[in-house]
């Protein structure tokens, strides 16, 4: 197990390095630079700017210097916002994106898994139809449409929730629903089909043949087995929720990470692009890693060598 963990961590580092390298190359292939703007800037100024930020160095040296900085947890200064560092962006945005992500995650889990269970146990009955109808809506309607609808009804018409910002806890409610909608629907469908499949397995019949209650058959024998596929997709889902959705943050004016990420790309803010990508990739890889470890705890057939 220890050997496996060490191997996994090494692979994670290599993966992150490759992601950084690829992003760096792609970023520099795209025409333009952080200092391209509509205003005519004299060549002398550009040269001075490039020299200040070492953008006149050969590319490989820029990459090496940058990666050395990353190793010291220094993602460098932003090229667009004078006096701000990428670390400032992450530290500033993460609390909002993280909080929203966490409440959404709890909300998603509390909704989707019971929904899937009820739908599976009432397979073909009206409860199943109703839940799967909403689940289909949830996966097909884009989150910004849901968000706009929610804002119109609950903020504008009813006035129950603020229209923008997260100054009070109420501000998190609508973004949470809008952002979680897709994941709830997706996970509920997955939970339903997984539980239906498990309920048809031979070992469920064996459990029933023991004369134990149907509740115990489901709780003890079916659910744990049915959760395995759900846990598989939970890693990427958690990473997605935690690092924030640009669209949702934009609609609800939440100063999270998503906005910085998108702006940095359109503005060629090299260090911010790199910093955000590496940060997002790290969270994603870490979540997948945690899920793999979790597997081991829930399924004794999985042994990591």
């Amino acid at each position: 197990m220890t050997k496996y963990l060490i191997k996994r961590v090494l692979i994670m580092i290599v993966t992150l390095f490759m992601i950084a390298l690829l992003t760096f190359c792609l970023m520099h292939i795209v025409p333009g630079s952080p200092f391209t703007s509509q205003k005519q800037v004299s060549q002398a100024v550009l040269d001075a700017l490039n020299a200040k930020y070492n953008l006149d160095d050969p590319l490989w040296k820029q990459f090496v210097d940058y990666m050395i900085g990353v190793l010291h947890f220094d993602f460098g200064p932003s090229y667009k916002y004078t006096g701000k560092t990428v670390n400032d962006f992450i530290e500033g945005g993460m609390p909002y994106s993280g909080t929203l992500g966490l409440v959404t995650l709890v909300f998603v889990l509390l909704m989707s898994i019971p929904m899937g269970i009820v739908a599976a146990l009432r397979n073909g009955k009206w409860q199943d139809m109703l839940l799967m109808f909403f689940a289909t809506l949830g996966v097909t309607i884009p989150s910004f449409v849901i968000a706009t609808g929610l804002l119109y009804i609950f903020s504008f018409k009813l006035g129950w929730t603020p229209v923008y910002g997260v100054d009070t806890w109420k501000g998190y409610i609508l973004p949470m629903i809008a952002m979680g909608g897709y994941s709830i629907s997706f996970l509920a469908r997955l939970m339903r089909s997984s539980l239906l499949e498990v309920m048809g397995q031979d070992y469920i019949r064996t459990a029933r043949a023991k004369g134990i209650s149907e509740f115990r058959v489901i709780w003890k024998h079916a659910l744990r087995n049915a959760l395995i596929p759900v846990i598989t997709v939970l890693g990427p889902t958690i990473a997605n929720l935690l690092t924030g959705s640009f669209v949702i943050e934009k609609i609800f004016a939440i100063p999270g990470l998503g906005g910085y990420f998108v702006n940095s790309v359109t503005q060629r803010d090299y260090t911010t692009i790199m910093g955000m990508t590496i940060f997002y990739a790290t969270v994603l890889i870490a979540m997948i890693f945690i899920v793999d470890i979790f597997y081991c705890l829930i399924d004794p057939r999985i042994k990591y060598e």
Partner: protein
Amino acid sequence: MEHILEVQDLHTSFLTSSGEVKAVRGVSFTVEKGESIGIVGESGSGKSVTSLSVMQLLAGTGRIVGGSVKLNGRELVGLSAKEMRTIRGKEVAMIFQDPMTSLNPLIPVGEQVGEMLWSHDKALSKAEREARVVDLFQMVRIPEADKRLKSFPHEFSGGMRQRVMIAMALACKPDLLIADEPTTALDVSIQDQILKLMRSVQKEMGMSIMFITHDLGVVAELCSRVLVMYGGLIMEEANIFDIFEQPLHPYTMGLIASIPDLNQDKKKRLQPIIGSPPDMIHPPAGCPFAPRCPYACRICLEELPPVFRAGEGHSSRCWLLDEDAPSTGNPLKNRKEGQP
């Protein structure tokens, strides 16, 4: 003798989108105390459905639509799910066909067997339960029983898993053990071990066994009486000697003729039964075997034969036993005259 199980005119159907599948169409038999009875038939003959009806573990849309199932004199048809649970595992237990999929992959085997004990005796402490499970594992000859309690199913071979299933079924000392093709999924050498084990535990515990199989050879090893099922009906019932020596139903004869024989001339080919089983949504009006039967007459296609008694505990659902049956080409009458 004392009836452990008494099944009277059992009808079981499955509702499907294309119609009602009449899987069992009026089956009656009894199982005596300490007896082992074999139910033989090909896939779709209704043998598994009969056993699952007794357990009331029918999958999906399966329903008992008529008849009676009495266990230890108590009617099971119509019992509530809760009452049925007190019987399942305690009075009647079941071993299933595929040991690879019949155990929960996420729960240690000791706990799975222990759950059977817990289910019917909540007063038992955890330590007592574990001790009982070790005893059971020793009885089914799982080596190093005390060390295997915490093992998971995937750490066992197929034969060992079937031993776990047997231990589970025996845990509450049931009066009737239903074994639904318990050796079909196993290697031949392991099959033999499992059959020997079942025979020895039966001797030890004295319960009745209902053995469902498509393999007459397995029946010969373990059972004293045989029911041959086809098309949801019992076609022939006889003790184990009569079924091989004097089969009365052409289907039984066909089954016996299709058993490979080591001493047989190698040039002679095995005799298959030509054709396939009937459609159980629209079962034939006459004998279900008639379309495949080499001796079929017109009446066989038109009218379902009644059960003819032909001696002590021997009966057959075949028109050949009727008084008016023609003697030319009749395998039964020829045998009576020509053979010993």
